[in-house]
Structures are given as C-alpha cells and as structure tokens.
C-alpha cells in the first residue's frame, strides 16, 4: 500500500455528492412546480429570469462526482479499493481500518469542505453579478418609462 494519506478519503466527497444530488432533484421538482403555478397565474417565466438554484447545485454535483470518481481510480491504482467485498482493502486489518477512519475524518472532510467552499464562493460571486445586472436592467427600464 502506498505510504501517504490516500486510503479512502474519497468516501466523504462521494457521500456529499449523493446527498447534494438528491437535494438537487428535490429542489428541481419544487422549482418546476413553482414555474407551473406562475404560468397558471399568468406570470412570465422566461429564460431571462435568475439562474435556478438547482442549476447552481448541479455544478457542485459535477465537481464532487467528477473529483471523487477520478480519486477513486487513484485508490484502485494503489490497490486501496477492490471490485469485490469488502471493497476497501484497509477494512481487513484493524490497524489499517483505524488509520483509514482517521484519514476519512481529516483528509476526506477537508476535501469535501474545500470543494464546497470553492463552489460556494463562485456561486456567491455569480449571484452578485446576476443581481447587479438585474438592478441595472430595471434602472434602465425605469428611466425609459419616465
């Protein structure tokens, strides 16, 4: 086994990806329902409206699934995971299991936090830009009306 800190750290991003994927689906369904209600009330639902939160969340899914997928390949490369039960080679030895759990709780959590924080910052910045654009458009529209 490779000397270092990569045993099963990808498990945390995978677990987060599963949760965020489910949350994305739930939010997407809610947004669709809301759009249908808006259409029934005669409110315009156009492509110029703000980007949906489910779309933003989907980016986090791609980052987590993509990153964790490639990381899983690295673990397979180093013989740390196997395609049959118990899947993680470290599980067969108690000392390795303890080390693996320690790495999951430190490296794995840090990975998930860094990816989520980067996505959060990017989403915050893009939302700010979006809001600024929207306020500029409404200001121009108000000027035109006067």
């Amino acid at each position: 086994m490779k000397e270092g800190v990569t045993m099963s750290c990808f498990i945390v991003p995978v677990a987060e990806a599963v949760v965020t994927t489910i949350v994305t689906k739930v939010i997407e369904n809610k947004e669709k329902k809301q759009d249908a209600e808006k259409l029934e009330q005669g409110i315009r639902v156009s492509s110029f409206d703000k980007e949906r939160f489910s779309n933003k969340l989907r980016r986090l899914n791609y980052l987590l699934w993509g990153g964790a997928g490639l990381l899983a390949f690295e673990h397979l490369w180093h013989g740390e995971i196997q395609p049959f039960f118990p899947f993680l080679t470290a599980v067969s030895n108690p000392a390795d299991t303890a080390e693996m759990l320690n790495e999951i709780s430190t490296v794995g959590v840090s990975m998930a936090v860094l990816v989520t924080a980067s996505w959060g910052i990017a989403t915050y910045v893009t939302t700010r830009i979006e809001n600024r654009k929207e306020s500029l458009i409404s200001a121009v529209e108000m000027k035109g009306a006067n």
Partner: protein
Amino acid sequence: MTLLLTILAAVITTVIWYCNEKARQLKVGTLCYMFWGASMMWLVDAIFEYTKLRAEYFTPAAEDMLNDTFLGVSVITLALVIWVLILLVKDPLNVVKQALRKN
C-alpha cells in the same frame, strides 16, 4: 505529479471552454468540473502529505515520480473517456441520432 498534470488539464480545458463556443456545445464543461474537482481533492491530499514529509515531499524518488506521471496520464485518459461517453449519450449535435436514422 498527478496533481500537477490534473491542474494542467483543468487549466487547458477551462481555456478551451472559455474560448470556443463549439467546445461549450460539446460539453467540455463536464471535463472542467471533473479536473477541477479532482485537482482540489488532490491539493488537500498534497497539503496533508506535505505536513507529514515536509521538504522531502518535493524530492520524490524517480520511481515514484514515474508511477505518479503514469497515474496522472491515466487519470486524464479516463476523464476523456468518460467525457466522450457523456457526449455520445447526450448527443448535443444530434450526430448519433442522425447516424442511427441513416442505418
């Protein structure tokens, strides 16, 4: 080396995605997400490894470096294969659909 190669791949795909409309249609963005996600995760891994090994981290054995390079190239190849599969399944330019209709 794996981290360096992945970051390099992430930067190149991002530049291609930014500059080329056709690339955006061909879902190069998916590749960007894969490479950036993996780069961030390997960066964390590298930081933890650095805290353990300190300066030794920057002087790997030639054999380890070769293995890491081989791994990095394999990771990039795997990501490209996944991207091509996504491209064929989603078929944004309807090329596969048209080819199937002809047959």
